[in-house]
């Protein structure tokens, strides 16, 4: 028996369960993993270095492309860091809009995760269900920003524009009957807030549907219960945040513990797991879907009742409206300076973090007083979680590696940056 040795297996980077471009070098003893060495960086674009070569506002779009499943949350951390440095207080309505879209993003991200994770470990239908609802939220993105994924909607000083009063509607086509078109357009007949209200009314039942497919499913439980267990102490030491930390039973959520914007005025709960395994993290994320739904409803109610500005009026930071530029010399100058040079940010540094769907997404921003960041560091939750993969999969079977990768909810846009 002494000739039998461990053998090394290359996993990815084009494996469908590698969630993008993860390359794993697995050392196996039979089917049991002895060591996993992730090779990352295949999607490294040097976002941080690129941001150092551009005025502050031109890098907002790069933030979307970091974690491309939770776009607006990344933008949120970036603009928050700039606002902290500038000392800007943004209008209340903009704060509510940001929080609402953060939660829309959270639902989008968790739906993407749930669908993909389901596919990875053998549940096909849930993917179709998830993407059905995710489509509506992408429409909401499109309605405010014109883009379905990479919104660039948040700006230092607020959000790019107010919520629209109408939504694009489906046009008649030979692939859909008139009845189906009318059905699709029914929810889209009012304002964006009406559309989201309708979505939140439906969504709780949708989550119930996902749960009927998975929560008590014997196969699902066999694949996830007691897989990739992380103790609370270990989770803290490994720098876990977000659902991965809460799945291990640590009560920690930046929205509650270090509230930003208007999270301290909202009523929502933080779900916490018990066992720290894949199943706990699944349950935490499912409950977060419901809680995010609650938050969106509260934001809708407030936003309906309180119209107002969504951007600060300081044209040293925010470009003036087009119409103002037509007749006002000073607005034209402001616009020209902002577009050709941008604004300078005072000397100093800050760390701004938001509770992104995957965990703490932080921006460390250093400025030397120039119109470009001196150093920008994106603290991506997925990067930290992936670094713990080796520890989590040791002793598990090869098939469980896929379950653990799925449960970590990694997206390579942010891991590689």
């Amino acid at each position, binding site marked *: 028996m002494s000739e039998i040795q461990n053998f090394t297996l290359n996993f990815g980077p084009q494996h469908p369960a590698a969630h993008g471009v993860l390359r794993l070098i697995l050392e196996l003893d039979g089917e049991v993993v002895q060591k996993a060495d992730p090779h990352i960086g295949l999607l490294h674009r040097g976002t941080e270095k690129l941001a150092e070569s551009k*005025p502050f506002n031109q890098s907002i779009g790069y933030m979307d492309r970091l974690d491309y499943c939770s776009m607006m949350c990344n933008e949120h951390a970036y603009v928050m860091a700039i606002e902290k440095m500038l000392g800007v207080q943004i209008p209340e309505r903009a704060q509510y809009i940001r929080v609402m879209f953060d939660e829309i993003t959270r639902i989008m991200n968790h739906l993407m995760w749930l669908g993909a994770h389901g596919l990875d470990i053998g549940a096909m239908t849930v993917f179709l269900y998830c993407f059905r609802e995710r489509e509506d939220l992408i429409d909401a993105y499109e309605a405010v920003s014109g883009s379905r994924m990479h919104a660039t909607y948040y700006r230092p000083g607020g959000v790019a524009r107010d919520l629209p009063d109408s939504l694009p509607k489906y046009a008649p086509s030979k692939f859909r009957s008139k009845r189906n078109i009318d059905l699709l357009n029914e929810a889209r007949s009012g304002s964006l807030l009406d559309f989201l209200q309708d979505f939140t009314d439906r969504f709780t039942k949708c989550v119930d549907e996902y749960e009927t497919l998975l929560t008590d499913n014997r196969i699902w439980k066999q694949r996830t219960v007691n897989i990739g267990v992380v103790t609370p102490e270990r989770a803290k030491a490994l*720098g876990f945040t977000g659902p991965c930390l809460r799945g291990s039973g640590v009560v920690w959520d930046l929205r509650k513990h270090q509230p930003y914007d208007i999270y*301290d005025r909202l009523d929502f709960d933080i779900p916490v797991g018990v066992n720290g395994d894949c199943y706990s993290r699944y349950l935490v994320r499912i409950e977060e879907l419901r809680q995010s739904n609650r938050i969106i409803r509260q934001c809708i109610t407030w936003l309906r009742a309180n119209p107002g500005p969504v951007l600060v009026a300081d044209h*040293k930071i925010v470009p003036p409206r087009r119409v103002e530029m037509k007749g006002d010399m000073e607005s034209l100058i402001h616009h020209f300076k902002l577009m050709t040079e941008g604004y300078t940010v005072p000397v100093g540094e800050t760390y701004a973090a938001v509770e992104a769907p995957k965990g*703490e997404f932080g921006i460390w921003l250093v400025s030397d007083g120039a119109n470009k960041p001196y150093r920008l560091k994106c603290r991506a939750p997925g990067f930290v979680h992936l670094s713990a993969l080796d520890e989590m999969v040791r002793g598990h079977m090869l098939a469980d590696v896929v379950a653990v990768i799925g449960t970590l909810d990694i997206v390579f846009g942010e891991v590689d940056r």
Partner: protein
Amino acid sequence: MSAVSTEAAAPLSKMATLAAHLEATFGARLTRLAALDQELAYEVVPTDLIAVCTVLRDDPRFAFESAIDVSGIDYLSYGHQEWDTHDATSTGFGRGVVGQDSVFVPPEPRARRFAVAYHLLSYANNQRLRLRCYCDTAEPPTVPSVVAVWPSANWFEREAFDLFGILFQEHPDLRRLLTDYGFIGHPFRKDFPLSGHVEVRYDAEQGRVVYEPVSIEPRVLVPRVIRDDNRYDAALTAGRSGN
């Protein structure tokens, strides 16, 4: 930047308590750095780093259980601007390709060029702390590794090694992380050009991907300028809050 002023008072006093504890415990080993409101930053020298970090983790008054972020920084071109606008500018900034340097060369070498910043988080006390540690020698810059204190620092230090070339002493597995296999150089250093040194393309004759020197000419579209903005002058804006 906290939304409600009544709440802003509570964490501030908590932060002041933490600062007092830190200064009482470590004395001269920590040097307070300027930071925004609600943030606390200290500088520590490499020789004290491990001892200080261990206490920060284990002492219940600090209880920084997690290193939430560790990142390198290169101060080579700090304060450098591509277009001097200090006096009324008589020269414009040419946005064309001609005559632009791809790499910034400082007039005199910087004594303290590389630093590592540690962002610590205490879940128990709900507090954050930033430590900065300037690296020892010029080349290669070295700093002790904190992986033994916080396992989460492992990949962060590998990243800083890869991108800045900072050596972390006693790191268990200091390999490149983000750059290509066989990559040469440390791309986030300020003297590394944005376009890099090599580009790749598929060569049909050789039937494989080949590396070649970059053909892109460096070009700055928006110059880096530093303006002395009165709005950020503390003496002038003393009585004013916000923007």
